[in-house]
């Protein structure tokens, strides 16, 4: 599904990612763990098309060159990024935003757009699953939401948009243990043979609830070790400093 070959990314001639390689097959869950500044967020930004990086190498998503696609086209093709810091958008009603987003994606895929009633039915169901306070959906997008609510809102969007590849950028940070379980349940309910996940995190904690197929250790812009779920535990015990 996703193939990253020799990815190199600089920002203002500072090297962030270098000789980065990764392949994710349909249905797989990959976790990338790494210390601050190792390039984790840069990777998720590049995958979703954020501008401002000097990039070389290749990224194929379902055999299509990702660099030829704009941010919104990547979303249409099924790439979703759950932001580390979801933005507050004043004046934009959350429900309206969700509906606009879903219908933009459905339209691009040639599917029928949902009307208000169909949409509300869907959003109600998903909000209930995630124990997301429905009343908040009538508020301005993320404005006045707590850190945990913002993160849950990302997962709600993910579950409504039903992407093929979901990238979770430190979704666990700032979540209490109950919220963490809800978020993990949300992710697990979306795990299907065609849906893949890339989970970016500092801590092993989230991986107790979402069992990854592969764990990669990212240091200084490069994957230095890959393994199974047990690698996360090893990392947790040793710390990044003593790893290598």
């Amino acid at each position, binding site marked *: 599904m996703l193939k990253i070959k020799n990815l190199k990314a600089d920002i203002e001639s500072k090297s962030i990612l270098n000789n980065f390689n990764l392949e994710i097959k349909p249905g797989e869950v990959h976790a990338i763990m790494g210390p601050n500044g190792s390039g984790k967020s840069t990777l998720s930004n590049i995958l*979703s*098309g*954020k*501008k401002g990086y000097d990039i070389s190498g290749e990224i194929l998503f379902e055999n299509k060159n990702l660099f030829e696609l*704009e*941010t*919104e086209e*990547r*979303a*249409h093709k099924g790439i*979703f*990024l759950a*932001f580390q810091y*979801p*933005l507050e*958008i*004043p*004046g*934009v*009603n959350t429900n*309206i*935003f969700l509906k*606009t*987003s*879903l219908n*933009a*994606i459905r339209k*691009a895929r040639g599917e029928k757009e949902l009307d208000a009633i169909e949409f509300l039915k869907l959003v109600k169901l998903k909000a209930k699953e995630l124990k997301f306070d429905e009343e908040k959906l009538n508020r*301005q997008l993320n404005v006045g939401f707590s850190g945990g609510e913002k993160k849950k809102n990302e997962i709600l*969007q993910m579950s409504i*948009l039903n992407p093929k590849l979901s990238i979770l950028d430190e979704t666990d940070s700032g979540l209490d243990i109950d919220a963490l379980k809800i978020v993990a349940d949300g992710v697990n309910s979306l795990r299907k043979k065609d849906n893949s996940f890339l989970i970016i995190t500092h801590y092993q904690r989230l991986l107790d609830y979402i069992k990854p197929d592969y764990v990669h250790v990212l240091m200084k812009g490069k994957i230095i070790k890959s393994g199974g779920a047990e690698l996360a535990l090893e990392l947790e015990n040793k710390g990044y400093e003593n790893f290598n």
Partner: protein
Amino acid sequence: MIEQLKIDFEKLIKNSNFSKKNVEIKRKSFHNFIEKGFPNRREENWKFSDLNQIISKNIKNLSFYNDLSKPNKIDQSIFIDGLEHNKLVFVNGRIEKIEFDYEEKNKIEILDDLVLEKSNDDNNSLLSLNNAFVSKYFKLIVKKNYSLQKPLVIYNITNKDLVSKSINLKVDIFLEENSSLKLVDFSDDKSNTNFINVNYSFDLQKYSILKNYKIDNNSNNNIKYYFNYISQEINSVSEIFLLSSGSEFIKNEINCNLRGKYSSAFVNGIFILNKKKHHEIKTNINHLVENTKSYQLIKGVLEDTSKAVYQGKIFVDSKAQRTNGYQLSKAILLNDNTEFNAKPELEIYADDVKCSHGSASGSLNEDSIFYLMSRGLNYNEAKKLLINGFLLDVVEKITDSEIKNLIKNIMSLKQ
């Protein structure tokens, strides 16, 4: 220009039946205008909008006499759809329709044969120009305890025959005790390069309510000045909303005097400008007695080489204890060649006062755009959503839900 002015003025006097008293006042105002001319940037009030320059740049051979002897056709298609309303229709400066179909006839009164008052126009040459050249001067009186059933829309229409003219309108609105009026100003211009000068005076007796929504949305290259004088007695409320968008140049000046205790004034405005449009909102809110309140919120979205100016003044008299005054202005500049000038002014002589002001401008937040695009919206959709979100809270301040919806429709803000 002075020669033209003199010829046109004499022509007006000759061809109209003004009373002797009116002619006398008109002459005085005329001389005042001749002496002062159009305001320029040396005047503090006009420092960001040099009207003299704007007029000479945009209007060739401005003339001041307007033949009002023949009626003009009204293009009915421009009437606001889906809103039952009373109408006052001006076409090319001539009154063509007065229609109050929804109201009790003895509860409103319209006077049109008025003697000009010796208004204090000495310092405002545009009011002198208006006094000198206005042909009919209207006054609407809403009687005690009466609330108009439907809004009144004053249409100010100019059609394509009108070129390089100075058009002057003068309307007084008098709200008797405990009466109320919703007034919409709606302009439609198919004309080119005219100077349109409107002089409003609102007199709000105690417990009366004025809601005035000024919609300048249709693109045109006329130059406009709207002067709004508001006087408020005990417990009266004025609410002004401005959508300032369509004209090449428009300055809305609001001069509000809170003379009665517990009176309050709200001024909310939106600039949506592109090309080289230049708009200004200038307010003077005078808190003259205790326990009065004013609130001003102005937002702008500027594109291309457009320019917006907001000069907001709050004056608090030494008698005006427990005044509450607030003003905030914000602008989004969509490119580097736009300009937003905000000049907040607070002049406070009382000590028990709550007043605040603020202003901010900046570009669209690219991170927010990226966030929305990552959810499948293209750049323009994301931009539009952010801009609408930015402007929405000003529109939400409109207290009349029917007109709020109308304005949302006009701005395509409907979500």
